[in-house]
């Protein structure tokens, strides 16, 4: 007779209750793994939309640009800066910005014109793959522009339609020209959706009479890196000290907070769920102890030390939570993997996309099953089970044999 076998037999003794407890813990575990995978998916999609489509990991500007985005606040030594970044193992792409008015027919809307380096931009963002209809920019089509989906709706244009742009060129003259819509973007974020107007860099320069320089350099690591975001920022800042270097967390604090809160909400949900499951476990284990109180008295009278009784109760709980974990994995992994390919479709709630604080959230909610989404719920399940059994295990182990033997 060893303690493990003794504990296992005790579990079989109240088979129905054991099954209910394992089932409840397993189901809660499965739900939480699935929920964690959904949140990971949400974070991944949000980061992909915001960082992978627009912001990049790190951005470089002249010091005054972010506070006052002026057409004259340019990075003049962009080639030198990008060469340095390349040597450090980063991809980078220059961007140009200017404000203007887009008009089509009798409608008009303020836009932010974006001059894009069509060769370098795909290295830092995936925006070129985020076209809802039509095509991305092409250097062979200098008058072809890509616009945000809400802008297209506001000014009532579709693919092939013409748009007039009016703005102020760098020399103070009026910049205006006629462009043709060659692509309409999927939702990226409120800024791009409502005012995004993409054109190739050369066209931008010609419209605004900007021969050189850029307003922004977007930077991402060229390969998978173990460096943290802060380390990358510090490294780039040290390499290019003359410009302002900020990472996406500093540039988009609201987004960073939403992502942090989403991660924190998982922990809160885990605590709430497992506190409930913990009460069930506590209840079950207390019933278990009270039913066997006489037996504990006998085995203590026969000389079993308290720690062995504590171990028996703990082993019973650990066995139950281990089986529940396997059950949870068995239920949650296939479900989460299925939802990695077949997302939950929330488009009936938000037809195109929902935006919160200017950040677009995809109505297709994918799961992202990571080691974190599996291990964190299981860790909490074990933690709360251990906490829940402490009281019954201590009660059983510290029981006075005489009182227990004559317990009625």
């Amino acid at each position, binding site marked *: 007779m060893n303690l493990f076998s003794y504990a296992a037999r005790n579990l*079989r003794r109240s088979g129905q209750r054991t099954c209910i407890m394992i089932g409840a813990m397993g189901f809660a575990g499965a739900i939480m793994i699935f929920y964690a995978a959904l949140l990971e998916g949400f974070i991944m999609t949000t980061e992909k939309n915001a960082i992978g489509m627009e912001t990049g990991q790190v951005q470089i500007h002249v010091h005054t640009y972010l506070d006052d985005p002026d057409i004259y606040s340019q990075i003049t030594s962009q080639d030198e800066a990008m060469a340095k970044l390349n040597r450090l193992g980063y991809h980078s792409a220059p961007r140009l910005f200017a404000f203007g008015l887009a008009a089509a027919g009798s409608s008009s809307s303020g836009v932010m014109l974006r001059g894009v380096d069509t060769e370098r931009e795909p290295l830092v963002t995936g925006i070129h793959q985020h076209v809802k209809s039509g095509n991305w920019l092409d250097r062979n089509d200098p008058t072809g522009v890509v616009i945000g989906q809400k802008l297209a709706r506001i000014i009532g244009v579709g693919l092939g339609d013409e748009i007039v742009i009016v703005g102020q060129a760098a020399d103070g003259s009026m910049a205006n020209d006629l462009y043709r819509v060659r692509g309409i973007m999927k939702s990226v974020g409120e800024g791009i959706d409502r005012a995004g107007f993409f054109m190739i860099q050369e066209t931008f320069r010609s419209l605004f009479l900007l021969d050189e320089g850029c307003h922004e350099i977007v930077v991402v690591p060229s390969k998978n890196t173990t460096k943290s975001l802060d380390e990358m920022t510090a490294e780039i800042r040290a390499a290019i000290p003359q410009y302002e270097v900020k990472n996406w967390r500093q540039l988009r604090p609201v987004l960073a907070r939403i992502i942090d809160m989403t991660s924190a909400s998982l922990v809160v949900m885990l605590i709430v769920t497992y506190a409930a499951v913990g009460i069930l476990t506590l209840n079950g284990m207390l019933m278990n102890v009270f039913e066997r109180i*006489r037996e504990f008295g*006998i085995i203590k*009278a026969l*000389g079993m030390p308290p720690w062995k009784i504590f171990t028996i109760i703990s082993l019973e709980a650990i066995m139950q939570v281990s089986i529940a974990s396997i059950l949870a994995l068995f239920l949650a992994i296939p479900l989460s993997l299925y939802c990695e390919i077949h997302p939950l479709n929330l488009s009936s709630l938000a037809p195109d996309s929902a935006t919160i604080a200017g950040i677009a959230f995809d109505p297709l909610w994918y799961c992202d099953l990571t080691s974190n989404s599996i291990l964190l719920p299981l860790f909490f399940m074990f933690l709360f089970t251990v906490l829940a059994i402490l009281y019954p295990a201590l009660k059983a182990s510290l029981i006075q044999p005489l009182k227990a033997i004559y317990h009625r």
Partner: protein
Amino acid sequence: MNRKSIVELNQICKIYQQGKLQVTAVDCLSLQIAQGEFSALYGPSGSGKTTVLNMIGALDEPSSGDVIIEGKTLAGMDRTALSRLRRDRIGFVFQAYNLVPVLTAYENAEFVLALQGVPIRERRQRVMSILEEVGLADLADRRPDELSGGQQQRVAIARAIAPEPAIILADEPTANVDSATANGLLDLMENLNSNKGVTFLFSTHDQRVMDRARRLIELKDGKIASDGVSP
């Protein structure tokens, strides 16, 4: 020849507080049990038999006086030491058998040996020989719910004698069995006493036990009313 004293009770009292009332369960009782005795405490309900047995078994402590087992005073021993004393030197046979329901007859009988850390091989030899002795070798793999009351009590006796304790305390061991089974159990315990020198102290109402006991100690109101060799 003077036999070695296993149990010595010196002026022990046990007073329970029941609300504002003090109940004296054992009243300044002194007693000695020598090695190899086959003795019985008897008396009416509430006379203090079980309380005395519990104090000898280190399950309860006296309000005053000393309990001495094999020359060691129990007063002042910590829980661990008392637990070890029960495990190694005292065997218990309870009225309601009190076997562990999830363990087989063999496992119940080896329970205390396993706690003592006796090696598996030696354990097996000793337990099988004892089960043979109590007539349960063929039923070693059965669980308590697959055994009759008498068989369960035999397993309890096997469990009590397996670690070769100094004394076996048997609290109404024949109370829950029929007459034939009770006689069988008493035969078994008598044989163990005669052949192996196992010391038994019973607490009983049962005339059959009193008929077999070689020393009868009558308790009345927590005091020894009579103590003598059985005729």
